[in-house]
């Protein structure tokens, strides 16, 4: 058989390594029937095509053609190899095509954004709710204890409320039906935090931190009960735990994306203090509060009343602060706004006093 001109039989230059030494030998590859031929210098090899492994295309990197136990070839001529392989009828995989096309890259980008947004909007709250509702009481206790401990150390001061009022509120809260879920400990933790302003928030274990500043807003204990009923709504639906789980998941995903894993659960106190519940969560808690108040012979409007007072108090505090220190850099208004993420107070009043 005579050697034909190069355009008749496609050939590709390659470097052959036998796998025993690092010596490189120049060969040419060609296809003969069902075999791959390697020829050059002292090398004369015939590899059955079905036993040959050809590495997938990866950018413009050399393709590696190997035959188990017999070494491998490195091919830099991508186009030449494609032409050679075209004879064998080997197609490209879908992944190969995807990885090398700009339209696919852009489509992937869009799909990533869409799936991340969908996961954040739907899968994350759903997963967090399911997990939170199934967590054993002991885990909630631990979370509650450690959160309160951290808050006590950094933000909260002992309550100055007189013992009789504390007792009265605690007893009124204990009488609130429906009775407590056995998994949780229903109690009020009285604290003071002048920097924070009027506020109350639920801990994962069922405790409600009630700040003096809120109690002092009203003489009507029933309005405090309305706030407690709202917070109990957050507790029953495990909102605090759900928020912790959600932001832990977001933190984990971010850490993985940025490639830096740092402590995750340490952020729990910050999350609970910020208490940026979603509007859905607030509505759930409001609905719960309305039902609870009605079941206890109280008007759901009470919650709307105390919300108005809260809003007024916070507005006043903000104005005073701005008057005292007009936009001083470095010292931001640390008062977390109990109302910031809450649906507009007007709207809530309408829903609460609807009946």
């Amino acid at each position, binding site marked *: 058989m005579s050697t034909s001109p190069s355009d008749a039989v496609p050939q590709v230059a390659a*470097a052959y*390594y*036998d*796998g*025993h*030494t*690092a*010596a*490189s030998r120049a060969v040419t590859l060609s296809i003969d029937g069902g075999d791959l031929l390697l020829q050059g210098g002292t090398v004369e090899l015939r590899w059955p095509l079905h036993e040959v492994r050809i*590495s997938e295309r*990866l*950018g*413009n*990197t*050399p393709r*590696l053609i190997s035959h*188990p*136990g017999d*070494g*491998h070839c*490195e091919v830099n001529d991508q186009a030449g190899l494609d032409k050679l392989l075209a004879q064998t009828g080997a197609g490209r995989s879908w*992944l190969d095509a*995807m*990885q*090398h*096309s*700009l339209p*696919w*890259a852009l489509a*992937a*980008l869009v*799909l*990533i954004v869409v*799936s*991340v947004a969908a*996961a954040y909007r739907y899968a994350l709250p759903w997963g967090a709710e399911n997990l939170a509702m199934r967590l054993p009481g002991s*885990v909630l206790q*631990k*979370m509650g204890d*450690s959160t309160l401990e951290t808050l006590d150390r950094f933000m909260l001061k002992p309550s100055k409320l007189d013992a009789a009022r504390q007792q009265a509120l605690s007893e009124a809260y204990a009488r609130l039906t429906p009775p407590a879920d056995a998994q949780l400990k229903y109690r009020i933790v009285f604290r003071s935090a002048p920097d924070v302003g009027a506020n109350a928030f639920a801990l994962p274990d069922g405790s409600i931190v009630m700040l003096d500043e809120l109690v002092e807003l009203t003489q009507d204990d029933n309005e405090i009960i309305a706030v407690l009923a709202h917070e109990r709504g957050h507790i029953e639906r495990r909102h605090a735990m759900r928020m912790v789980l959600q932001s832990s998941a977001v933190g984990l995903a971010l850490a*993985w*994306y*940025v*490639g830096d*894993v740092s*402590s*995750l*659960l340490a952020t729990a106190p910050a999350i609970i203090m910020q208490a940026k519940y979603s509007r859905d969560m607030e509505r759930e808690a409001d609905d719960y509060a309305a039902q609870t108040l009605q079941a206890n012979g109280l008007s759901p409007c009470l919650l709307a009343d105390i919300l108005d007072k809260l809003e007024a108090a916070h507005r006043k505090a903000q104005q005073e602060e701005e008057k005292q220190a007009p936009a001083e*850099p*470095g010292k931001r208004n640390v008062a977390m706004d109990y109302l910031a993420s809450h649906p507009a107070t007007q709207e809530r009043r309408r829903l609460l006093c609807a009946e």
Partner: protein
Amino acid sequence: MQEQFGQQNRSFEFTGRGWEYFKIWIVNLLLTILTLGIYSAWAKVRRLQYFYRNTRLDGASFDYHGLPKAILKGRIIAVGLLIAYNASFQISPILGIVVAVLLALVMPWLLMRSLQFKLYNSSYRGLRFGFAGDKRDAYRAFLMYPVLAAISVYLLAPLAHQRIKQYQFDNSRFGSTAFKLHATAKSFYLLYLSALAVLIGTGLLVFALAIMSGTGGGVKGLNPLFIALAPFILFAVFMVLGSVFGAYMQNLVWGNTELGPHHFYSHVSARRLLWVGVTNFIGILLTFGLFIPFAAIRMTRLKLEAMGLAVDGDLSGFIADQQLQATAAGEEAAEMFDVDISF
């Protein structure tokens, strides 16, 4: 550099390109998200293959052979350990400490297995790399020296670092040829002390500037501008120092490494490392991470192309490790080198 007869400098070449890698990266990211992270093992193999095959020395490229399933197994172990570690501290501090101690005890072994996996699955010119380190030395390097460093208030940290590098390099093989690290503990100490001196000096300088430009009265009269800028100053200092330290460390380690009769050289420039580091950081920030693949390509190119091998004669003299070669063919290898906890 002293030119000996028959000795030629061969620089590493890196041919990876940003847009090309971006396309691979984004498809990998999509598939990883859609499979809830499972595909990340396959993505890692593609990423390493892209970088290895784009790395050339003397006309030949490197290759990576890790099996995604082994990597997936390693990742499941790593995630399990991370969860166990975090959860145990939530349950009780004592349990947390117990788990932390257990983790510290298995970590050297896992690191050793990871090195074995990584090197065994790397090849060049048809020969596999290998790792011959044993368990006893792994525990010395990854547990004993770090513990000594910690209890000596980090006076022994440079020594510990040098011992870890020595364990990694001296046990690495290309075919049957061993690597040898000549960088001494003394040279590590010099590098660490210089970095510390620069850090303290910069700190004092910034502090002095803050006091001088302040309202007087010592610490209380610090210029508020400096207090507001403190995190940025700190970030800038660590960025600069990190780049300089990184460059000198690479040059120290690779500039003192031999492979048989050949020796490596490394002249990565701290100034360029800083430039690429800062621009990468800004790029990633401004593009919400889409610049990550471009950043990886730029950084790899800078670090690799500053390195090379002073080749004595030529590179065809290496031969395969017979023992490795024997097991590599069989399924035994898959079981021997099955863990990779590195990410």
